[in-house]
């Protein structure tokens, strides 16, 4: 009996990819619920990686006709009897499970357990930001940054050995050999075999001639045969020599056959977005407020990164004066004093003007604040927003951090002594891409974020 041993390890893995996609699609609704749940508790930083998600196992069950395990009269055969005798009675466990022996009680308890599995970062983000869209998107020119990708571009005659293209080289080698009529090695072999054959034929003739040197007649016949054979051998050997010379002269592979894969660098045009994060760092903003703001900014950054090839982030913090800063400073440093919002807006405007050509860049501005502002500054804020900043941007999101839970659901602009909200409320009516949401605790962030980017008419300002 024969056998075959095959090494399949090099075969492509991931045969199940499309099954997996189907499965994720199937459980998407539940995955989303599960993620919303996760968003409430998880630190936003974690979101950059995938993770384990759970969906209720019943949502993806495959029903079959089967017996209700609690019904009917059944007999079990169990191994490991220690003490029971025929006729013994054993009280059923009071859990109401109604099933005896072993672990099945516990099994059923966990049986309802959720189905837990891991998803990758991309799958995670896909679901996280599914059906969100960028508001007020404008077609901008693609920005050509000093970044290149390598692309294959045909073959060249010179290159490094690791780029050698075997197929192309061999095609040329074959072509050249045919064109130059390189003799086949097989032909030489054939001729050599023929010589050997003739030599074999020659042997008996020689023997006869040596044995009967005086038998004139016979010798005459054999001698002529021998001569014929010798002539042929000489002829063939001459041919072999000729062919061999040609064979050796034309190499199997020649430097002129060699072809190398060629790569060229092509500039990689990208659609680009800049995101401004404006944070109030005055005394009124405590750790809680900053943490909320940060969560929102990170989500926004993730989202924009999904949609754009290139996303730049500008951090601006402000109290009575505004300053551009690094991310580190942005979230950690403490400031004190009052709040003059207009300075930050002014700074943002300047930076856009100076650094970001609107022909290429989409501009997103998000501001997080508890709403405090010097009352004298309010008019200023309104003017800068209305005349300078807003006409330049695609989107302006204001995250209003409120002090009490019940305020989250109140109407925007009402009650809370937040001066900013009132101003922005006015602007909201003019510029439809201005949006305001309130948050109180981390679990508000994700729903608020979804509302910001929900497709039009879907979740805009209740």
């Amino acid at each position, binding site marked *: 009996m024969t*056998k075959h041993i095959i090494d399949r390890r090099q075969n492509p893995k991931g045969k199940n990819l499309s099954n997996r996609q189907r499965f994720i699609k199937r459980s998407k609704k539940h995955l989303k619920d599960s993620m919303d749940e996760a968003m409430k508790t998880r630190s936003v930083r974690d979101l950059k990686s995938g993770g384990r998600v759970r969906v209720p196992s019943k949502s993806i*069950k495959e029903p079959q006709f*089967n017996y209700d*395990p609690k019904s009917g*009269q*059944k007999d079990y055969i*169990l191994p490991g009897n220690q003490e029971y005798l025929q006729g013994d009675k054993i009280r*059923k466990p009071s859990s109401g499970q109604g099933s005896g022996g*072993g672990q099945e009680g516990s099994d059923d308890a966990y049986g309802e357990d959720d189905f837990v599995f891991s998803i990758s970062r991309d799958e995670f983000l896909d679901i996280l930001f599914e059906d969100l869209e960028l508001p007020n998107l404008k077609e901008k020119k693609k920005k050509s940054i000093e970044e290149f990708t390598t692309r294959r571009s045909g073959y060249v005659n010179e290159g490094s050995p690791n780029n050698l293209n075997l197929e192309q080289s061999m095609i040329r080698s074959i072509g050249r050999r045919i064109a130059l009529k390189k003799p086949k090695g097989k032909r030489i072999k054939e001729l050599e075999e023929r010589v050997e054959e003739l030599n074999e034929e020659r042997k008996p003739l020689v023997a006869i001639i040596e044995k009967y040197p005086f038998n004139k007649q016979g010798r005459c016949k054999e001698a002529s045969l021998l001569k014929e054979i010798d002539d042929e051998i000489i002829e063939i050997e001459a041919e072999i020599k000729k062919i061999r010379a040609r064979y050796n002269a034309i190499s199997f592979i020649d430097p002129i056959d060699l072809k190398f894969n060629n790569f060229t660098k092509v500039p990689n045009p990208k659609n680009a977005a800049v995101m401004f994060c404006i944070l109030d760092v005055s005394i009124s903003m405590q750790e809680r407020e900053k943490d909320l703001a940060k969560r929102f900014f990170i989500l926004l950054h993730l989202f924009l990164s999904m949609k754009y090839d290139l996303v730049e982030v500008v951090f601006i913090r402000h109290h009575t004066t505004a300053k551009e800063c690094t991310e580190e400073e942005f979230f950690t440093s403490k400031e004190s004093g009052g709040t003059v919002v207009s300075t930050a807006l002014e700074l943002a405007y300047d930076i856009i003007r100076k650094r970001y050509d609107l022909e290429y860049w989409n501009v997103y501005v998000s501001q997080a604040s508890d709403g405090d502002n010097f009352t004298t500054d309010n008019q200023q804020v309104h003017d800068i927003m209305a005349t300078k900043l807003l006409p330049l941007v695609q989107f302006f999101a204001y995250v209003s951090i409120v002090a009490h839970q019940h305020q989250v659901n109140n109407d925007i602009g009402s009650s809370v002594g937040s001066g900013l909200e009132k101003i922005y409320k006015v602007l909201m009516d003019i510029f439809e891409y201005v949006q305001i949401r309130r948050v109180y605790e981390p679990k508000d962030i994700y729903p608020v974020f979804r509302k910001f980017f929900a497709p039009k008419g879907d979740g805009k300002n209740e």
Partner: protein
Amino acid sequence: MSKPLYEPKSDWSFDLISKIYDACEEIAVNELGCDCYINQLEVVTFEQMLDAYASIGMPLSYHHWSNGKAWAHYENQYRKGRTSLAYELVINSNPCINYLMEENSMTTQTLVIAHAAFGHNHFFKNNYLFKTWTSADSIIDYLLFAKNYIQKCEEKYGLDEVEIFLDSLHAIRNYGINKYKRPGKLNATVEAEKSQERATYLRKHVNELWDTTVVTTKKDTEEKEKRVSLAKPEENIIYFLEKHAPNLTDWQRELCRIVRKIAQYFYPQGQTKVMNEGFACFVHYYSMNRLHDKELITDAAMFEFLRLHTNVLNQPTFDKKWYNGINPYSLGFAMMMDIKRICEEPTAEDKEWFPDIAGGDWKEIILDAVANYRDESFILQFLSPKVIRDFRLFQLGDNKSDPHYKVKAIHNDQGYKSIRKEMARQYDYNYRIPDIQVVDYDHDEKRSLLLRHYKGPNGRELSKDTTIDVLNYIAYIWGYEVQLDVYSKQEKFINGKSVGEPFQKVNGYKSTSTDGTAPPPPEPAAKNFGYWGMFLTADDINTIDKS
């Protein structure tokens, strides 16, 4: 004597595998008399093993989300370290495909080769169920045909359409089987041609359900003829739907065929788990011992093997937390070994219980058992008092109304037969899968389909929630309402003679969907797997062979 083929710590290599294979072949074929398909040993990574697991243990399978779910499940389990993967996976095909995982040690590979490449392989080729129901020569081709066909359907009619239809079919895949009528041999090319033919034929002929010229004054005889023409009652529900569901399109009918053909292929595996594993374990145990006798493997390898062997064959007792039913490996192996013992050193008890095999030729008897039995009949025939004693088996009665379990039999002279009989019954296919058949359909405008479930003598009921879910799926295929009546045996005796219909309707279910619209994804229901009632989990329903 001879030098060991490999040192204890050495990694496997292709050369070694080849040598070990030859050594195993020598033992299995020449000493044990195994008769196998040609083997194809494939070395795979653990990811590929997972892939194969998820596609119902086959090297290829059509795309469906349930496979993705299975994959996610196994992967999760594996990464957590909850389960180690199977050392082997073997496919009933010709040539017989064996997967060897690259992580396995050389000893494990040896074990796997003896176990799968010879044990299972012989079983596949010789057991009457496999011979009757599966065509090892063409299964791979057929799966390829199925995969391509379904892929084309998805391109043509959309993923969702195909998915919901497959879901519906999967819900009744246990009812896509002919239990009595033997199927023809599978052949992928012929199938493809046939599929074309069927499509044209169906187009030419109007389905009788659409016959609107039905005259109400139809005579009973005509009615009867019609029933005959629909071939009711029908145990193969998928087959019935494929032939008679009025609204199905060609491709949907073809999908019906594919699902039931594959279900039919797996039908024997569920019925021979104990024997199949038992025989494979017997072969690997015998082979490893012989290799050791011949000094082809070292003592260290032998110890490693024994550790693996005892792990696989561990049978926890019922009071352990991790007790999960009778381990088929353990039971099967114990029974095979016991047959050998009965033949070689029969006791007085054996002579009384097994007069025809005691003192016989054990090779002949085991090979005969492998060829001609399935789990139920094998246990009924060969479960010996000694095995019952060794396992300390006992029989526990569970009556719903009684707050106590009753110990009905233990491992003593009064108990052996009862235990053996009950054990065999639990491996009976018909005991595990509820008996449900198509009996009729309404001829009025509702056109509802009538199914009937015969309640067994032990009074087990269908679990309610899943039943409705499944009915909804059937309604989706049938196109109209589906009704399931539960019948129970209620014989009336007059003067000791049974009178009237022995079965009476006691209960009924109806699909909630009545117009054949796609059912919503099934809603919550208690998770249970109606296999052996309580001892098995969903994984066991997967009738793939994994150790």
